[in-house]
């Protein structure tokens, strides 16, 4: 019983310690943000890695997200709801929830693993120490460009995902589900609100930060050799996915029950 309590206590203190160090890392990264212009080469390089490297997985994921939403929508609605609302269902689901969350899970996992493994390898091979000795702050040179690349590119990828998913839903509905093109487009326009799209983009902006922080934090805190890199990569991805889902719930409350509801 004592050892169980001790384990729980240790887990809680470790968790709080990690959260505290995460906040300090975020603070250090934000303090380096005035150096954005000086670090533009690294930031652009990282943005290319986020965007161009993720394109194939974004396209495939988005097409099938739209297609599956269309199929499920038709199945759920066929006996009770007119098909003119199919476009509404697809656009709202994709803009508010599926686009930002799936991008955060699919692209985010890829990105988070990339950051954690790359920085973790640099840590265990003393490259971070070498940088520090050269009086170059790894928070500025490595963490800040990766953080802003993820934060800025996640909304861009989410817009891209939204667009392709709606097109995927449209193609599936028109080509295989006997929904006419006009009816689908009418549904798309019918209850469209800018706040749906904006809410999704705000979510993806926050998710980008969570993904980057998880990858950078676990990468910088890697211990041991190859096994340590593997462990920190796995922990970073799991931590990122869970944090995204929790943040999604909190943002849903804040954005759609408080901010946009009152405007």
């Amino acid at each position: 019983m004592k050892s169980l309590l001790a384990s729980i206590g240790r887990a809680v203190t470790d968790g709080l310690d990690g959260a505290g160090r995460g906040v300090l890392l975020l603070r250090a990264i934000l303090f380096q943000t005035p150096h954005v212009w000086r670090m533009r080469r690294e930031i652009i390089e990282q943005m290319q890695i986020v965007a161009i490297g993720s394109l194939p997985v974004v396209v495939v994921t988005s097409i099938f997200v739209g297609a599956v939403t269309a199929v499920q929508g038709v199945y759920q609605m066929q006996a009770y709801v007119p098909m003119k609302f199919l476009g509404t269902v697809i656009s709202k689901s994709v803009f508010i929830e599926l686009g930002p969350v799936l991008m955060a899970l699919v692209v985010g996992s890829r990105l988070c693993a990339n950051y954690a493994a790359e920085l973790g390898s640099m840590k265990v091979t003393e490259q971070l120490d070498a940088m520090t000795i050269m009086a170059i702050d790894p928070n500025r040179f490595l963490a800040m460009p990766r953080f802003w690349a993820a934060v800025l590119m996640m909304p861009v990828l989410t817009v891209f995902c939204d667009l392709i998913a709606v097109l995927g839903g449209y193609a599936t509905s028109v080509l295989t589900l006997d929904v006419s093109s006009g009816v689908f487009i009418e549904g798309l326009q019918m209850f469209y609100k800018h706040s749906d799209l904006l809410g999704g983009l705000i979510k993806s902006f926050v998710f980008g930060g969570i993904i980057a922080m998880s990858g950078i934090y676990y990468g910088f805190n890697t211990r041991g050799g190859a096994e340590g890199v593997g462990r920190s990569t796995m922990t970073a991805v799991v931590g990122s996915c869970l944090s995204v889902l929790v943040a999604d719930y909190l943002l849903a409350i804040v954005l759609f029950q408080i901010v946009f509801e009152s405007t």
Partner: protein
Amino acid sequence: MQQEWDIPPPPDQSVADPASFSGIVVEGVSKSFGTKVVLDGADLLIHKGETIVIIGRSGEGKSVLLKHIVRLLEPDAGRIWVEGSDVQTLEDGPLMELRRKFGFLFQGAALFDSMTICRNIGLALEEHTDWPAAKIRARACECLAQVGLVGAEDKLPSELSGGMKKRAGLARAIVMEPRYILYDEPTTGLDPITSDTINDLIIELQKDLGVTSIVVTHDMPSAFKIADRMAMLSRGRIVFTGTVDEVRTTAHPMVRQFIEGRSQGPLGTF
């Protein structure tokens, strides 16, 4: 039955006023990792312009001591003074300034594997000077020539052999013309000829640039060749310091066992 060894007391490494000492003072530094005590009150004086070689068995904390000097690690107790500055109390800005006086050759070279050799070497110049790219490249090539690596500037670290990586690491360590160069096992894992080339480079750099060199190694031929003075680290403390001749002739049982490479002796009994 365990043999009793007549081990002399550790050498006196204290200075009256560390803040006015022109070199490096390591004063009672202790460091533990979990329950493992690595340094246990280590004291060491490093004089300006000398090449001091720190010897000791693997895992005795030689590299840990080296990392404390540039505050890559924080001691649990004790202090380190570099040119009169207490390294542990320096704010970020002065610490960065201090680090710019140091070059560090890591055991595995620690080259940035996503960058070419030229950018690895020129990165510090990119960061700390307003030199144009062409001038930085020229300086990087000059350093590469100094370590005998002409033509390697556009290669990636993965394209170099172990010895070439060490030499590229050395070129990176000297690019900012540091006052101090710290070498962590510079010849470990290299063939005897490459090792001797690295030794010659260390001696040349010390002569040409007048730097203070601190070398951590357990490669005794290398240590005898490059050292002005040697210090032995054992059980977390500096147990002996002396010139190369003093090391060769000392009766200190730990030093004798180490330089003779015997398994029996005070170092082998714990």
